[in-house]
């Protein structure tokens, strides 16, 4: 892929136009930004016992996690499934564009949305939720959530490579919403039945939120390294699966 001929301009333009194209799709932008903010204001701020800000802080972590998952999974799954179905991906692959430019562009879009969601929720938390954190906690949480988009982008990529453009949105929702609930992103995981608490370990969103909560000393108390290792293993496994599927999809059509 890196033949020295591919210039930085391709990567920049690919990323810019992916973002522009997504930004001009209100059906994507509005739910992606509004849902986490509205849910957080409702459950994290409005229903929070006033004065302490501790529930607002806890929910800030879990709703940030909920917020960054959506755009990563949806942008990858839906636009890749659609580009495949429409033949646009085939045409791009026949051009000299490196596949990495295409995938990194989608990653960049996911990161921009993640950053916007983080800024929106952090502002809401500080302004209305009486959440007071140290500077390193704000920064650490923001950085963690940005890096945390990776496994969800990979899940989206896998779905985008395997599903039809018609099936992709439905399947992503079918995965996204239960995964968020079972990872304790809407209700604290400790409020879930025992079996569900154990099943939470399956989901990357659980481990990401626990790492975030650890920054605020509000986690369940498992080792940070364990959560981190499970996130890395999940991401590595997903990467491998994506590579295999990518070869098969590319070879078959």
């Amino acid at each position, binding site marked *: 892929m890196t033949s020295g001929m591919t210039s930085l301009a391709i990567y920049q*333009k690919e990323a810019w136009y992916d973002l522009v194209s997504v930004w001009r799709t209100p059906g994507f932008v509005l739910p992606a930004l509004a849902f986490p903010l509205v849910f957080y204001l409702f459950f994290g701020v409005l229903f929070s016992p006033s004065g302490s800000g501790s529930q607002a802080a806890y929910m800030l972590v879990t709703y940030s996690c909920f917020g960054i998952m959506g755009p990563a999974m949806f942008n990858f799954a839906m636009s890749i499934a659609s580009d495949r179905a*429409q*033949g646009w991906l085939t045409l791009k692959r026949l051009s000299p564009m490196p596949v990495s430019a295409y995938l990194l562009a989608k990653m960049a879009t996911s990161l921009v949305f993640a950053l916007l969601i983080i800024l929106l929720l952090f502002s809401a938390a500080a302004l209305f939720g009486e959440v007071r954190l140290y500077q390193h906690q704000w920064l650490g949480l923001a950085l963690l959530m940005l890096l945390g988009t990776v496994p969800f982008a990979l899940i989206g990529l896998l779905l985008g490579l395997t599903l039809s453009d018609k099936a992709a949105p439905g399947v992503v929702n079918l995965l996204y919403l239960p995964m968020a609930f079972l990872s304790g992103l809407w209700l604290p995981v400790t409020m879930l039945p025992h079996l569900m608490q154990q099943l939470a370990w399956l989901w990357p969103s659980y481990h990401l939120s626990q790492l975030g909560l650890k920054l605020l000393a509000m986690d369940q108390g498992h080792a940070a390294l364990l959560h981190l290792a499970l996130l890395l293993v999940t991401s590595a496994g997903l990467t491998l699966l994506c590579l295999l599927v990518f070869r098969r999809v590319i070879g078959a059509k």
Partner: protein
Amino acid sequence: MNPDVNTDQTLLQLTQLHKSFAGKPVLSGVDLRAKAGEVLCILGPNGAGKTTLISAILGLIAADSGDIYLLGQLQQGASRSVALRQQLGVMLQIGSLPATLTVAEHCDLFASYYLAGYSATELVTLAGLEAHAKQRFGRLSGGQKQRLLFALALAGKPRLLFLDEPTLGMDVEARRGLWQQIRQLQQQGVSIVLTTHYLEEAEQLANRIMVLHQGKFIASGSPSELKALTQYKVITCCSALTDAALLALPGVLQLNRQPQGVTLHSSHAEQTVLALLTADNTVSQLEVSQVALEQAFLQLTRGDGTEAVGSEKEEQAA
């Protein structure tokens, strides 16, 4: 022809290309050669293997056996180098590009892929969409979309250009405009491989037409050579003779009666006409015409393809 163009240069060559899907042969021994400045038109009914052939050439699928040379380089499997892709242009039948990006933005993006290609502005001009540069792809008409895709195929100033049904959905005027552009490219020495359902398009543009049927080329030649392959002519007239009497005329292979007259297919048109005029002095509206390529094409691809092309026996049997 541009004197700078070396027309001996072979830009695409296939030898004995085979490809099967699940044990069913789709390409069975395809040979093909396209030179610089040549428009090669691949004709064939649906299912003839056109898509598989183009996919194998472009490296979207790997052929089972046979050699593919692109720009003189032997290709391995289903991978095509970036350096090669810089010099290829491809227009496929595409459902949609990202609908929310404008014409100018699509041109800007595609122009950035190529080292020595056209600028975004030049691509908009090539597409003839200057007045629609700021229009989103989703709001273009079918013909305008095709013109944009055609321009994107030219983004890298390709030496070898693949056009799959390029004028699909275009009105007559737009179609003629695109033909003009294809002729200009041909004069610049671009080698063009074209698939089309419009036979007029093949007749107008092709130096050579190759007819693909059940994974093999069953006929190849210039449009006029291909016409000559079909050995009969069509005679239409109004005659008082009975069908039996008409069929008994020398050279007549087939007869179709229509309200406005009768159509005869003849292997020896001159003799048929002479005998017809001798037998019936009331004949009117007599017309002798060459078989249109469209009919030739139907004739070529009818049957199992192993028969001689345009076989009279086959026609008689029908």
